[in-house]
């Protein structure tokens, strides 16, 4: 039975129980589900050729043995089999393959197989997210068929494209613009068309990457109404609705004594966002729409694994999507770090997430590359007894700017190499501007001779590097275009700075150095300035 039919057949309580009942679990009950599903996965994965390439003949009998026998893995461990899409190597037959870019990988893309069972779980959990996005408390939700969703995420074969496909199997929702049309549109066309339709039909839900929803929301505020007039003849009723909505919005804005914002025109029932850096946008999005976005966590490899709930006070993990392990912060830099389980996390600690995809998934003890902080083991206010988390960022090896691009040391090296710029040494870091928006900050030291032979200004370097970043990473070019911000900042360090730092403190991380280390690097430059100045004076 479809979710839409169930809405008519079952009580709210029953529907809540089915999709959000996991929130009533205790940690012990959560772990029972985890262990049981892991048993199934161990059998499937252990017997597959993919599993055997890693297990090398060993046969774990229980989860403890599995954790001992299977080392932590990265995509490199699966690349050969998965990228060739060798079906018979896998634990279960995949229904479809989801793809994403492979940051700093050997190939441009990564693919992940999705089994029927994984998709069913994904679907159930997505519906849970949809219900929770409209919820103001336990047991409360308001989802109805034929509602409209403004959808700001990429279509299939990207993981985000699964949402409309799976959702439409269960309930007739109107995606703005319709999914089929959206697939053929560019990003900005999609958004424009979506909003146009939204103005006519109203918007009940909004789902997108935090940064994109922010950009789209802002552009809506400054919407040009003149364009709509040209469409008058084709859809007069739609135009009338649009006009009424706009007028109503303007009236609301005027009453509040501020500029028009989307919240004046639309009353969202549910607002969901995914991706990185959502923290930077949530407050402003809430202000713009009058409803705080609910963050969900989904990815290509792990599927949909977690969601915030009505209080928007931390992510809760789904018990049936993956088996979760956590690398404590102090273990992250080790080659084979120790992991702890869901029932062993401590409030306040930061962890790198390690997953084993359940239900015939390919990835086992896989380092997703995301860092979470456990913000509490239970929440009396929401009456939950499960650990809840906050998404912090990608692991330090990766710079993810606003969920768009993933920059690694390798990709920067390659960019520098292609650009031909005479950069002697560099370090790069994700930083936040005065509006709390993320950008990539590169600290470079040029070869001394480069100043003599080339034009070396920050603008030139930025232009050069931007071109090659865009060349190597298709997502990078969307950063500026979509977010309307300059994603790259460059600071040229004085010659010899890195050398002095190395002599004094040793090596510095090339990607995401710690704040203290960066301060020391910059100070090394200042000290040099003083000495040089003194030498110059005496000379």
């Amino acid at each position, binding site marked *: *039975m479809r979710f839409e039919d169930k*809405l*008519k*057949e*079952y*009580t*709210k309580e*029953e*529907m809540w*129980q*089915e999709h959000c*009942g*996991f929130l*009533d*679990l205790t940690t012990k*009950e959560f772990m*029972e*589900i985890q262990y*049981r*599903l892991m*048993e*199934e996965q161990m059998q499937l994965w252990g017997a597959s050729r993919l599993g055997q390439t890693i297990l090398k003949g060993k046969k774990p009998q229980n989860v403890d043995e599995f954790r001992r026998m299977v080392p932590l893995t990265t995509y490199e461990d699966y690349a050969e089999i998965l990228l060739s899409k060798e079906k018979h190597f896998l634990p*279960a037959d995949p229904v479809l393959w989801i793809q994403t870019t492979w940051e700093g990988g050997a190939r441009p893309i990564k693919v992940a197989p999705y089994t029927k*069972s994984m998709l069913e779980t994904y679907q159930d959990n997505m519906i849970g997210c949809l219900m929770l996005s409209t919820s103001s408390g336990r047991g409360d939700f308001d989802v109805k068929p034929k509602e409209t969703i403004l959808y700001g995420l990429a279509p299939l074969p990207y993981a985000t494209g699964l949402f409309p496909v799976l959702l439409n199997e269960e309930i007739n929702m109107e995606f703005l613009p319709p999914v089929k049309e959206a697939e053929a549109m560019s990003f900005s066309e999609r958004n424009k068309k979506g909003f146009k339709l939204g103005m006519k039909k109203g918007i009940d839900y909004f789902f997108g990457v935090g940064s994109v929803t922010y950009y789209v929301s802002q552009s809506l505020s400054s919407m040009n109404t003149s364009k709509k007039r040209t469409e008058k003849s084709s859809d007069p009723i739609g135009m009338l609705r649009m006009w009424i909505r706009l007028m109503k919005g303007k009236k609301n804005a005027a009453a509040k004594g501020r500029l028009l914002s989307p919240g004046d025109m639309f009353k969202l029932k549910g607002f969901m966002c995914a991706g990185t850096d959502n923290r930077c946008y949530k407050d402003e999005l809430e202000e713009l729409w009058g409803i705080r976005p609910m963050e969900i966590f989904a990815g290509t490899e792990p599927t949909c694994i977690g969601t915030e709930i009505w209080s928007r006070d931390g992510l809760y993990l789904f*018990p*049936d999507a993956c088996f979760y392990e956590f690398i404590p912060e102090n273990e992250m830099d080790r080659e084979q770090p120790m992991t702890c389980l869901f029932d062993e996390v401590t409030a306040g600690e930061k962890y790198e997430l390690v997953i084993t995809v359940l*239900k*015939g998934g390919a990835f086992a003890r896989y380092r997703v590359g995301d860092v979470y902080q456990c913000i509490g083991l239970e929440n009396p206010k929401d009456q939950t007894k499960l650990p809840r988390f906050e998404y912090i960022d990608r692991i330090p090896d990766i710079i993810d700017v606003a969920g768009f691009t993933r920059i690694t040391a390798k990709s920067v090296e390659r960019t520098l190499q292609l650009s031909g710029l005479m950069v002697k040494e560099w370090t790069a870091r994700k930083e936040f501007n005065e509006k709390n928006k993320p950008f990539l900050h590169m600290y470079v030291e040029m070869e001394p001779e480069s100043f003599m032979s080339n034009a070396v200004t920050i603008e030139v370097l930025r232009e050069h590097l931007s071109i090659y970043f865009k060349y190597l990473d298709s997502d990078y070019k969307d950063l500026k275009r979509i977010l309307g911000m300059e994603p790259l900042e460059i600071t040229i360090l004085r010659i010899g700075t890195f050398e002095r730092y190395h002599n004094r403190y040793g090596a510095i991380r090339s990607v995401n150095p710690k704040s203290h280390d960066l301060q020391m690097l910059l100070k090394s430059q200042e000290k040099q300035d003083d000495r040089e100045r003194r030498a110059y004076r005496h000379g």
Partner: protein
Amino acid sequence: MDSFAYISVIALSGYLFLFLAFTAAKKTKIIKSFLVVLSVFLLWTGGSLMMRSQMWPGLTFWFEVSIFGLIMLPFAFYNFVREFVGSEEQKRKRIWLVLGLFNFFLNLMTDIYIPAPQVIALSGGNERFVYHISWPIAILILCAGVTILDMMKLLMINAKKDVVSAKQFTPIFIGILVLFLGHVGTLLPIFKGFPIDIVSGIINAGCMFYALYKKHLFKLTLLVSRGVIYGVSVVVSVMLFANVISPIEHFITGKLGRWGEYDVLIIAFSFTVVTLLLSFVIRKFIDMLFAKDEAKQAENLKEFSLQISKSLHVDEIMDHILDIIHKMIEVKKVYICVPDKQKKKFVIAHSTSPLDSREIELGMKNPAIKWLIQNDKCVLMNEFRRSVYYRSMWESEKEQFQRLEIECIAPLISEEELVGIILLSQKPRGKSYAYDDLLLLDSINSIASIAIKNSRLYEKAYLEARTDELTGLLNRKYFYEKLETEIERCSKTSLALVILNIDDFKLYNQLYGMSEGDYALCQVAEIVKNCVGENGYVARYSGKEFAIILPRFDVLAAKNLASDIAGQIARMHRRDKDYVMKILTVSGGICAIPYSAGSMKEIMENADMAVYHAKRHGKNNIVVYECGTVQNGIQMQDDIDKKEVYSEYASTIYALMAAIDTKDHYTFNHSKNVAYYATELAKGIGMNTDFVEIVREAGLLHDIGKIGIPEHILNKSGKLTNEEYEIMKGHVEQSIGIIRNLPSLNYVIPAVIGHHERYDGKGYPRGIKGDDIPLAARMLCIADSFDAMVSKRSYKKSYTMEYAVGELRAQSGRQFDPELAKKFIELVENGTIILS
């Protein structure tokens, strides 16, 4: 009374019936609120009827009663709806209550809204009730309207919140609409004189009743008791007769002539008949409408309960469960799963058809099982799928349920243990399971659990009385019963009896302990059971004996089976790689009816005799009893084999001898001498070569335990202290400790362990005496003592042969077996034994 008085009577009867019935129901808040609604309906309709009948105490009184009911109706209705939707709201409820009471008392005092009607006499004895209504009645209607609107709002809000609840509200919406239209109808000329408002009231009460019924708030069978039906019948009859008593009286006295004087009797009789008829009709009507199925269900459950209470077998109970489910619930397939022997999973043991697929297996950790244990009630798959338990289902488990199209699962729980699971497939024509189906399944579980508990206790006792606790085979007592029955059954065909006796099992127990012995017995029992399978019966005949009854087996087939079993037992020690077992062999005897026995006694004795023969002829052998003679069936290992085996052991023995030689050269020579003397003695008394070989090996190894004795004690020239003597005595146990680790040599242990025992029982380590001491040990004892005397030791010089012979003679019957000592002396004296 006007011509439509019967409508009021029907309405009143209906309300009264419901009122009485619901007073018997469980008083929940919602039922109470429904009773309030019925009360105001009763006051309204009853008051009106009484008023029109101008009953005592008078028109005004009944008018006010009727008006009270009418004015309070909106409040009562509001209160009912409020409870129905589960609203906690209190404030508005109070407002509508106060407003209703206020309006009533205002009208009572001032007649402002509606005064009592004026009675106008019409021609033909009829009367008309004329109401003088003025505009203030609009206020009353407005108050009622506002209350109704508020009630509708409450319903709408809740219907919006919950789509499912909205469905339940539908009958109430319809009821309100009908009630409203009924009252509007009174204003229409078409209904002039017809109490359309009262008809709408009846329909409305019916709608409310239906809504409550759909909400499963009561059981009809509980409501509709015999008393209620009689009560209603009496009330209706009284009301009817109150109206028609005068015309009847007139009719009897006027038309029936002389019967007129019996008018009271006739009326009383008619009243009784009408009341009974009414009660009969009402009951039939209720049965036809609702209670028929429930009564039938109760009847079936009663029958089921009776059947299973008579049964003492779980299987029978399960079959009865299947039957009742099949009878009561229209369902394509029903399966009952029970735990398998190892209690690791539930497997299908019973199903509606023998052709049904039985491939489903539910592991003990299956979340569905967990759900059933924790909730102890049946569950629809749809409901289970919505539970959080379903999240931990494996894909293979989901597929199993899907394959069998399971839609409902019910537990069979006995003493908090899940003893069975009922799986019900889809209903035909896509019908879905009703609430009553689930109630029935839960009732079956409750009824069956007690019967299952009893039958399990019985079966346990039955099993214990018939089986051997250790091996699970039939015990001796039941074996005799079974043998007798089977001989009777096979009187026209054949029956073979095989008795298998484990060789040297007592020694096995002594050497390896009782638990090892028990383990071996279980292993042997398992082998025998598996080999025999469904072809016969296996019993533990005695401690180390197993008997196999083989109906319709001839001698050859029995012999082949027995040899197969014996072979498997001999190879048993190689089966389990992780567990080192010692070799065990069996001696078997076979006898068959009618070939070589004619009765139970004969077959038993002959098979026993065959076993005895097998034992006497070297064990590890199967012997067939044939008409007074016993014939070797299969010699499991021939003499050549044994020689080969012995030569294989030789290297082990030499290695041990070499070890003792390096430690204590004297003991090395002594062992060789003892072996020689004992071997000669064995030969001298006519023992076969096997025995002689055992004696020789025992002689060589009898002091091997001295490896563990400190050299200063072994070679001490003086007398040993008590402590040292105790250590020295320990060499016997130590010898055994070494030899028992060599399973291939453990047959020498009886000789080694007993070589310091004395014939008079004063020896060590066990203090056994006479023939209890193994023969080989008694021989070793003589050889050991003789060599000790004739050899030179660190603490003594060597004695002469004559002295030694003298000592043997002197200790004959005390330390030594007199027969053997005599034979030994004879062999020494005739030169067969010469000093080494």
